[in-house]
């Protein structure tokens, strides 16, 4: 067998290398050196990311396949991987001070190893062109997360969250694989390309519809689309903040892209008949339910969980648009969403570390005691709500534009519903701002000094919020890349 084809999966290998180095460091370095582990890992991953951006190093400038077409890569794919990398790096930076704390002394290494493994799994998920590889990637990406959710062994909530997560995750993967078995029965192969042809050939049958429904359910679980989202809030609330932020952005982003890939490359031909309408319903329900729940939350992590559910609904607009423009818009949305959400989680993490407070009611008067944190939080909220000139506005505008590019009247209606929902979301995002800036009660959180890692993380995210939109190059780059990508052909 030709080992050179491993070189096609350069980015996966890079992550593996990082993983191994971290593992070795964690195993063989003396205890004292453990303190440096977070910085070590971050730097390594940062290097990998940087390398990923230059095409002739790790990133792929052209489409390529490996393992008889089980694995494929292309500029757009390495682009999404780089986006995930950036997110992961930021998460690592923000988690430094948490992972550096003493009670993490003995498990510090595991955290990073697990995290890197999930990242690896997501890469596989994205690059897979064969369902076997895809499932492996999926499980790689979701199982270690359960362990990470359970990371605060001593905290009951952490355990409860982990149990809920693992049970529902296994259930959903069972359902998902059941769907896959149907697909197999219909297509006789697990290669996307073969299946695409088979679907194109065969008509619509109950089995196909169920298969698609189950696949959507399985992916919907990871994307936390309603009604497959019920685990989300509990897990986000229970998990350690760093894990929550990782869950909320990275795994969601990767799943979204993988979902688009499956939908386009496997079920692309039955878009109009079957799954456009499924997604249509799911998007409306997701956005609305997410918003309605988010309105009443007090715990910030839970609040952001529901907000991320409704955000997932907006992301899905990129899938239902089902054209290159909307795909690019979706990736852009994910990128911006990563930055905005991580900014919020950065603030939450900092405050939680310093004071242990994570309730919205504790945030009142924050603008007096910690003006900078409050400012970061407000920018994050505005960006999530889609207020110009922050990046969120552009991503929302473009994802709507992309969706409407699909052209049917139904899409106009869908976008209108989504737009009306933005008002509700604006409402609850403003609630946070209100608590921090307007609420006259005396401040709960006393002034404190956030660690330099937290500050660094916030600087990066805020810079992203401010620049990603105004600097048009980002979106332009994504759009051009996606036009280059080989599976633009599958889209309309």
């Amino acid at each position, binding site marked *: 067998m030709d080992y050179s084809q491993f070189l096609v999966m350069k980015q996966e290998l890079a992550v593996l290398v990082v993983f191994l180095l971290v593992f070795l460091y964690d195993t063989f370095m003396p205890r004292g050196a453990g303190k440096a582990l977070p910085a070590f890992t971050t730097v390594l991953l940062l290097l990998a990311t940087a390398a990923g951006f230059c095409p002739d190093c790790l990133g792929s400038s052209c489409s390529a396949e490996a393992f008889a077409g089980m694995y494929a890569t292309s500029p757009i794919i390495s682009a999404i991987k780089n986006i995930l990398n950036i997110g992961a790096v930021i998460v690592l930076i923000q988690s430094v001070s948490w992972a550096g704390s003493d009670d993490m002394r003995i498990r510090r290494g595991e955290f990073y190893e697990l995290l890197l493994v999930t990242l690896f799994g997501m890469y596989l998920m994205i690059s897979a062109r064969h369902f076997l590889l895809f499932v492996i990637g999926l499980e790689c990406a979701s199982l270690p997360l359960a362990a990470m959710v359970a990371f605060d062994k001593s905290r009951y909530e952490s355990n409860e969250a982990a149990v809920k997560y693992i049970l529902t995750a296994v259930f959903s993967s069972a359902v998902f694989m059941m769907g896959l078995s149907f697909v197999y029965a219909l297509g006789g192969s697990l290669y996307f390309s073969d299946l695409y042809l088979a679907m194109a050939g065969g008509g619509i049958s109950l089995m196909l519809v169920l298969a698609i429904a189950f696949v959507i359910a399985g992916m919907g679980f990871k994307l936390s689309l309603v009604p497959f989202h019920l685990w989300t809030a509990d897990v986000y609330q229970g998990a350690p903040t760093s894990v929550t932020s990782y869950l909320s952005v990275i795994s969601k982003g990767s799943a979204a892209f993988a979902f688009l890939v499956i939908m386009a490359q496997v079920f692309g031909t039955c878009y109009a008949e079957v799954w456009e309408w499924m997604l249509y319903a799911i998007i409306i329900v997701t956005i609305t339910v997410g918003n309605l729940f988010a309105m009443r939350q007090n715990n910030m992590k839970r609040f952001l969980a529901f907000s991320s559910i409704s955000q997932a609904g907006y992301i899905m607009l990129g899938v239902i648009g089902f054209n290159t423009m909307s795909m690019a818009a979706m990736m852009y949305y994910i990128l911006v969403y990563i930055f905005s959400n991580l900014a919020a989680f950065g603030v939450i993490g900092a405050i939680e570390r310093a004071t242990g407070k994570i309730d919205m009611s504790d945030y009142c008067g924050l603008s007096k005691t910690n003006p900078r944190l409050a400012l970061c939080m407000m920018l994050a909220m505005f960006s999530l709500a889609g207020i110009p000139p922050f990046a969120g506005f552009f991503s929302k505008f473009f994802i709507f534009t992309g969706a409407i590019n699909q052209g049917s009247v139904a899409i106009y209606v869908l976008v209108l519903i989504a737009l009306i929902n933005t*008002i509700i979301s604006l409402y609850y995002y403003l609630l946070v701002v209100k608590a921090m*800036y307007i609420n006259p009660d005396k401040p709960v959180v006393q002034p404190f000094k956030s660690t330099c890692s937290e500050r660094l993380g916030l600087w990066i995210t805020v810079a992203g919020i401010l620049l990603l939109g105004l600097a048009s190059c980002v979106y332009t780059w994504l759009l051009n890349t996606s036009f280059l990508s080989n599976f633009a052909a599958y889209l309309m």
Partner: protein
Amino acid sequence: MFSNILIWFVVIPLLMLAGLGLCRDVKQVRAVAVAGSTALIALSVKLLVDYLALRAAGDTAPMLFLGSWTWFAPLNINLAVGVDGISVAMILLSSIILFTGSFASWQVPQPKAFFLWLILLSTGVFGFFISIDLFTMFMFYEVALIPMYLLIGVWGTGRKEYSAMKLTLMLMGGSAFLMLGLIGIYYHSAPAGQPLTWNILEIVNNTIDPGWQRFLFPMTFVGFGVLGAMFPFHTWSPDGHACAPTAVSMLHAGVLMKLGGYGCFRVAIYLMPQAANELAWIFLILTGISVVYGAFSACVQTDLKYINAYSSVSHCGLVLFAILMLNTTAMTGAIMQMLSHGLMTALFFALIGMIYGRTHTRDITKMGGLMRIMPYLCVCYVIAGMASLGLPGLSGFVAEMTIFVGSFQHADMFHRVFTIVACCSIVITAVYILRVVGKLLFGPVYDKHHLELTDATWWERFSTVGLIVSVAAIGCFPNFFSNLIKFTFSPEIFKVLGM
């Protein structure tokens, strides 16, 4: 890029923001605010002069000072700027009100943050007026909206949290429809095969398919109409204005509500005249209602700001009403009404703020005979009232008369009848204005404690005089402004209507 004068209307506020960021104490903040707004006034005057010079030189292009810089190339989004008479007038108005507003908020608490938000807001306003690219227009529009939330929420009074939230959500609700409308326009901006565009001047040349116009016109018109306080979407205005701090009410009623009318014309009607012509009657009824309705409900209010807010509903209703008449005179009147209402309502809110700052009440039943106590402010108030009820020689009269005469020229009986209905507002306006003046300024002093109160300070005199002079200028030399505006409504706008 910076050779284009228009860009500076956005650059200067940004520089002001930067300057404010560096400020250490109140004096510096005031210095920056005054310097910046003075620069803006100077710039807008220069713009006016240059504009008139070009027109005088026989430049008949629909827009002048055009400039376009690519932003999002794939979507053909450009930072495209250009002005015609209307925009020039609006820019002038905005800079005047910003200038006077920054004087009116001389002693605001936390001045640094306040001015930061205020300047951000005005950045949006200026950007909106200069841009002719739908995307940038919309972006600036929303930039102008959101600071209201904090300005009202933090510096406001009364039920500020409720009002701020309500105002923000309703306006954003409007802009939700607006966004859909704009994207829709984008996708029908060019005949099949040609590249789509956001640029107004290009869209107006290749007409939008009438079938889609019927769908997109209401979207955009309602979207902007919410900000234009169109019945029944006006209820944010009374609460919002009542709770906002002085300068914010000034800027909001004076300029922001004009964004609504301006947008209604520039986007909804300018780009989709056929639909406007077909559907005008619906909105004519709505706006006609809000003209009379606002005036009537102003008659029984007791809170000064509520009275003024409802009168704004009535006056801005008149603006939209006139725009929908789709003829040169009425539309000219609409723009003049925007100018005049902007100035005089700003004057009103400034005075109300100053009176409230002294008496700590806005309830007209708890005040009286202030004329003896603070003559200067009260005389200004009477002048503002006279302007508002349309006394010749002040701005209100010329604007309203232009609107009435223009609307009555409409060939259709329905329109003329509605014009007469709208005319009735001048009586009702007189009723509520004189009611306030009589209760508040005249008669015996109601509250003995008010006797110690002082008259206006120098900065207050400064801002009020500035506004009064502008009001009188429009009222005394209307032809200058009407010619400035009229050119834009040259018949080729209505060529599609055969008007």
